[in-house]
């Protein structure tokens, strides 16, 4: 593995297998009375979040704490960034305090990559603009591997048909997911209305080997797993669809579509959900929904990532 985790492209299939095997062991810690491992004792991790986040930030914070690292949260609001400090100055200031890792979320695509060139610490991209969110992709694939496995043992995603639906244009999760899932041998189809299909996706899909579609009802019966993506109203300026009702009719996981899907096909959503928009409450709360498993998987996967980036020799 590289020193940083900036993009899902950084991880080979072998890296992912190692991370998952470690995550599976970390997962058991969540069921223990003493939720603490000493592996990162004496390491300091800064969670630097310039965008709002509940689950990613708390999940990284818990992951660091359970590995005995000191984790400190800095959010955009309430930091000197709101006084006009540049990203470079903020990051260099923090780095001067001797931190070992910076977990970063920023609204600008490529921000984590940029920061990794300024500091010695390991940088983990926890979401940069509409670019990537590699740990989310890892935890989604890990949650699916557990679902397709048996007991705690991880199953293979080889040949599984995973359908990603929703606001692809604004989704960093989708980009990372496609890379990670195809690397694990899954067959991926992404579905979106034409207005939310990223420009230039045709050349990427043909080189990376995944399919695109505008017709959810045609794809859904062939799915082994469905990932619903959030409609990112905060990134939308202008009309991408006429009304939210119309979006739901065309691309929402409604009660009717849930029936088509059947009771066996797992449903994922990276959260936060817009209930009633991209996913009906019936689907979100269905027995086959992995949404809460994704959250618990998130802690285990992030523990695994932090462990592999920070525990060994020559790190940070």
């Amino acid at each position, binding site marked *: 593995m590289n020193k940083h985790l900036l993009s899902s492209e950084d991880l080979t299939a072998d890296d992912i297998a*190692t991370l998952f*095997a*470690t995550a*599976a*062991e970390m997962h*058991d810690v969540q069921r*223990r*009375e*003493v939720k*603490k*491992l*000493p*592996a990162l004792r004496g390491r300091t991790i800064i969670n630097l979040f310039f965008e709002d986040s509940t689950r990613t930030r708390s999940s990284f914070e818990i992951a660091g704490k359970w590995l005995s690292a000191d984790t400190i949260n800095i959010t955009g609001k309430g930091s000197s960034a709101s006084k006009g400090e540049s990203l470079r100055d903020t990051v260099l200031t923090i780095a001067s305090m001797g931190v070992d890792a910076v977990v970063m979320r920023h609204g600008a695509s490529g921000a984590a990559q940029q920061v990794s060139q300024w500091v010695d610490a390991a940088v983990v991209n926890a979401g940069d603009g509409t670019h990537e969110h590699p740990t989310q992709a890892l935890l989604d694939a890990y949650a699916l591997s557990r679902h397709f496995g048996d007991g705690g043992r991880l199953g293979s995603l080889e040949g599984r048909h995973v359908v990603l639906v929703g606001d692809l244009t604004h989704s960093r999760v989708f980009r990372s997911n496609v890379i990670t899932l195809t690397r694990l041998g899954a067959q991926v189809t992404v579905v979106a209305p034409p207005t939310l299909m990223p420009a230039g996706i045709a050349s990427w899909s043909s080189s990376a080997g995944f399919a695109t579609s505008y017709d959810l009802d045609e794809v859904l019966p062939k799915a082994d797993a469905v990932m619903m993506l959030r409609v990112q109203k905060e990134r939308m300026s202008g009309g991408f669809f006429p009304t939210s009702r119309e979006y739901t009719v065309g691309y929402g996981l409604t009660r009717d579509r849930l029936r088509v899907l059947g009771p066996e096909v797992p449903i994922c959503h990276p959260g936060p959900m817009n209930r009633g928009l991209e996913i009906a409450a019936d689907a979100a709360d269905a027995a086959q929904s992995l949404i809460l498993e994704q959250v618990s998987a998130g802690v285990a996967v992030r523990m695994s990532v932090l*462990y*592999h*980036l*920070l*525990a*060994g*020799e*020559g*790190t940070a």
Partner: protein
Amino acid sequence: MPATTEPAVGPPGRTVLDARDIARALTRISHEILERNKGHEGLVLLGVPTRGVGLAQRIAARIAETEGVTIPVGALDITLYRDDLRRHPARAPQPTAIPAGGIDQKTVVLVDDVLYSGRTVRAALDALADIGRPAVVRLAVLVDRGHRELPIRADHVGKNLPSARSERVMVRLEETDGLDVVRIADSPDAARPTEEVAR
């Protein structure tokens, strides 16, 4: 590459224990464990991966033969508790499997292949403390090669093997390596002479 059907020959070196020696040692250890515990009540065997796990299962099988009971066997990985994590590239932990009954108030017997510096056992004791509170913890090893760096000793030893620090002690077991043998050889790399470190 030779065909996988060929019998495994194992590493070079002087053979210290052959398959029959290992079998006898494990039988004796099994009886010692029962004797010391005055029966099988409350016993839990935890093997330290990789090779301790297979040894723990063999001891449990022998106890099942003599006592007619199945005692809980598990695995306790110590990777995340090592004190030399920062001296090597990060290693993926191996599976830890605690038997369903847990370890609280039990007599836990840790099982490992080689006892050397004692650092693995130190890490295992830390790991145990995070999982529960056994009534008693004991240690069974196939080979004790000396050179302790911590105040730790084994309760049950298959063979005491005087060795030089520069030598390598190599344990190979059917489960993991396709044959049962313990050999000792001069280490080609004196800086990292032991299996215990190289694991």
